[in-house]
């Protein structure tokens, strides 16, 4: 922020926006780390599933759970209903497990840590203090903390390299660790909740994930605890031809609160890479979970070469009364996005919110939205979706709002706005609205328009170039969603909006 104080900030113009516009550049995270990796053989079969399970030192029940999912997966077919067009994925031509060789034995001190791994996190902009911990140095947690207070779990290809602030969180009773660790150390919690929101057989990609997920994060917030800091997971795909399958499980016990952030990046490569994650959230009575994502996987180049195929299943189950979940997502990356963070509003008076910005530029295709499943009485949901298409991209909002007969006196409000930049892209809206009782009220509105000429003209007359002006107008268009993000994420997201649209004008 201090860097912007000497900026000539015009009246009525957001300081952050100006900063964002100034920072415009192409995909910043496209480099890769040359690091010695250990791979499982290419392809997926029962042996690979067993191998992944073994690498994670999992108990027998977990191996069986995975195998059950795998056996189900081979009988399933890939869903084709989304408005996405991509070549057949050869599921046998991928590595399902990759980890830095140096992670085989957990390093004891900073000197032992692979400097390349350290440099990776430094380059990704994660502060040095944390970096020490992220690299998996035992005892680093004890060093005095400084700067921002966000606990991080970092996943590098198939493994979690470290989780910060574990001790401090443990004092509050919060469990924050990698899911592989949770399976070993908290089997009772994992057994109880894993697959209870997204069952093994849920859908093609989730089932594949259930079989081969290698790591991910686990969070348990005990009854009545307000998590003392924000939790975050940082996903980095580095290895080539590798699929990343992470699994996140968050449990918010009665009356608890947690804000969770997720970030992701990947190197620039010519080939497409597969990412199929599952996030499950269980929210009990009076608890609240905020889940924010800034998805910035490599989107492919200007010609549509490369990029991540992102097939994600995210679901929150408001299991008991007055549970509350808020999904906020900024989807700027990935060549293909297939993602519908959903809310099951089972508990009476439970609430679900979904705020989304999806930006598709160049040849990106995004099919994303949410499901609000109202099962309990007096439940409430709100959907605000902002889709921006530019270049040759296709952007689809797909959503479901269903009011069960028992979900009396419930409310939903949905607003989907699409913005088109250029005449070669597409913006689509596919909402499903199912209302099965009369005391509930459902409202849906959607608009599609282009960047307003008057607004552009105004910015241009104030001396902005066209690209800056578009970025400013688009940031205004996204405002409602940006405001729903935690402060630091909001700033990152705002600059991402500008970066993602680079080259879309003129």
């Amino acid at each position: 922020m201090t860097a912007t104080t000497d900026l000539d900030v015009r009246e009525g113009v957001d300081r952050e926006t100006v900063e964002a516009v100034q920072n415009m550049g192409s995909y910043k995270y496209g480099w890769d780390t040359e690091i010695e990796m250990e791979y499982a053989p290419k392809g997926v079969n029962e042996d690979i599933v067993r191998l992944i399970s073994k690498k994670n030192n999992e108990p027998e029940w977990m191996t069986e759970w995975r195998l059950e999912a795998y056996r189900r997966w081979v009988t399933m077919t890939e869903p084709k209903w989304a408005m996405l067009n991509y070549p057949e994925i050869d599921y046998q031509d991928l590595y399902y497990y990759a980890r830095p060789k140096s992670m085989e034995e957990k390093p004891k001190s900073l000197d032992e840590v692979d400097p390349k791994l350290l440099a990776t996190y430094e380059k990704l902009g994660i502060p040095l203090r944390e970096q020490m911990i992220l690299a998996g140095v035992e005892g680093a947690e004890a060093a005095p903390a400084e700067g921002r207070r966000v606990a991080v779990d970092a996943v590098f290809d198939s493994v979690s390299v470290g989780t910060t602030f574990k001790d401090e969180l443990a004092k509050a009773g919060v469990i924050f660790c990698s899911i592989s660790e949770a399976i070993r150390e908290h089997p009772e919690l994992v057994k109880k909740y894993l697959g209870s929101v997204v069952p093994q057989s849920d859908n093609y990609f989730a089932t594949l994930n259930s079989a081969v997920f290698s790591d991910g994060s686990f969070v348990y917030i005990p009854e009545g605890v307000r998590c003392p800091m924000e939790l975050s997971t940082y996903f980095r795909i580095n290895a080539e031809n590798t699929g990343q399958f992470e699994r996140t499980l968050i449990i918010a016990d009665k009356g608890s609160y947690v804000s969770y952030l997720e970030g992701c990046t990947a190197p620039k490569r010519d080939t497409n890479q597969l990412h199929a994650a599952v996030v499950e959230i269980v929210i009990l009575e009076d608890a609240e979970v905020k889940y924010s994502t800034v998805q910035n996987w490599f989107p492919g180049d200007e010609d549509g070469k490369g990029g991540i195929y992102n097939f994600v299943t995210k679901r929150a189950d408001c299991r008991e009364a007055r549970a509350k979940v808020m999904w906020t997502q900024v989807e700027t990356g990935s060549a293909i996005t297939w993602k519908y963070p959903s809310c099951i509003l089972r508990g009476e008076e439970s609430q679900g919110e979904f705020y989304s910005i999806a930006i598709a530029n160049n040849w990106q295709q995004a099919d994303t939205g949410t499901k609000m499943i109202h099962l309990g009485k007096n439940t409430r949901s709100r959907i605000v979706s902002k889709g921006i298409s530019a270049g040759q991209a296709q952007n689809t909002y797909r959503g479901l709002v269903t009011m069960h007969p028992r979900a009396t006196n419930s409310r939903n409000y949905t607003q989907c706005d699409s913005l088109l930049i250029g005449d070669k892209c597409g913006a689509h809206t596919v909402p499903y609205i199912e209302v099965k009782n009369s005391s509930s009220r459902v409202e849906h509105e959607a608009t599609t328009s282009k960047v307003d000429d008057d607004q552009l003209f105004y910015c241009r007359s104030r001396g902005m170039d066209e690209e800056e002006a578009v970025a400013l107008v688009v940031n205004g268009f996204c405002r409602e969603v940006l405001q729903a993000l935690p402060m630091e994420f909001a700033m990152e997201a705002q600059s991402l909006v500008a970066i993602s649209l680079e080259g879309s004008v003129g």
Partner: protein
Amino acid sequence: MSEIAVKTKAQQTPQVTGAPKAVTALDDRLAAMSLPQGGFSAPARAEALSRLRVMGLPGPRDEYWRYTDPRLFNVPGPQPLPFDAKAPESPLFAQRDTLTLVFVDGAFDASSSDELALEGIEITTLAHADAAGDHWAAGLYGALEAAGQQPVKRPFAALNSAAAADGVLIRVTGTPSKPVHVLHRRAADAADAVWHHVIRLEEGAELTFLESGMVGARSNAVIEVDLAQGAKLHHITAKRAIDPKVGLSHLFARVAEGAVLKSFSLAVNGTHMRHEAVIDMAGDDAVAHVAAAVLGDGATGRFHHDDTVFITHGAERGESRQVFKKVLKNGATGVFQGKILVKQGAQKTDGYQISQALLLDEASQFLAKPELEIYADDVKCSHGSTTGAIDEHALFYLRSRGVPMDRAIVFLVLSFLADALEEVEDEGLRAEINERLEEWLTSHA
């Protein structure tokens, strides 16, 4: 034993999968009908039949049939649905001076109809034209239906083109002095009526086309509308309220430059109904408005009504408007699937769509899928969809002014439907429909 039985079954499956199940059902369906032979429409019918064979009949898992079970349309024959021909309901549009054509169970009844002569209009029936040989409709019959099979399959429309026994063929060159009115009557309890109208309006021509009466126990109707430059068609369909029926209808329209299509339908009861409108905005500055007022009371039997609309903007400055209002009670189900597709280059398109349901009790439901698919940037497209109960505040206001509960509900329902009714341009017709709505609401209070 059971293991052997399973094996035998498995061995048999490959032979069965060679021919998809739907085709078998389709064969049964076709065998139960008599397909007309010869005449000007023969080549179009043959093509429609081969289209249908490729498509097969829809299954309940078909995305396009997500909310309406197609099985009642798939079965070879309808359930007999007895009706009361003397039921005390006066036909709509009876007081108007119209050129009336009477159809009985989907077949033209010349003896009850007016003489088919009116200035500025060329009119005949499908069966009659087929018997006579060459006809102007040869290039149109089945053509708009065929074009409307992309990107969504509509097998029952192809079935209709192949099998329709009768219908009316209208070509308008001027502005006829009165509307054309098709009045339907029923005769048999198990009539499976299939009819197909073709309406062509030449440059600058205008027509008001009305439909009313009782349709068969099951009906399958197709109307193909071709509007040349600057032509204007006003279409109003209002079928008799009290009959149980299973019905499907398709409106396929091509709207040329500056032409205007306005189609309004009133649907009151009906056991299992689906109405599809497929509109191609082919010329610049084309205008199309489709609207419906639907009232369903599940107390007198099952009520399921589906409106499915697909509007394609392929030219510039097109204006389309969809206004659908449904009032549902006693377990009635309303469905709306609407889509606006704006193709690349169809700049300055103005597309609007609203679907609203008023649920008068806990048992009724509304299922909607309002879609936008847009490939042009300089457009103004929006849709809205709302579902809810009667506004308590409005009701309280009326009650506090001394309006009895029943009347207050009638007022509020009528005001809810007003936007759809606005799409009926002719004030006289609008008033007549409004009166009919009020009558129904009062008797179903």
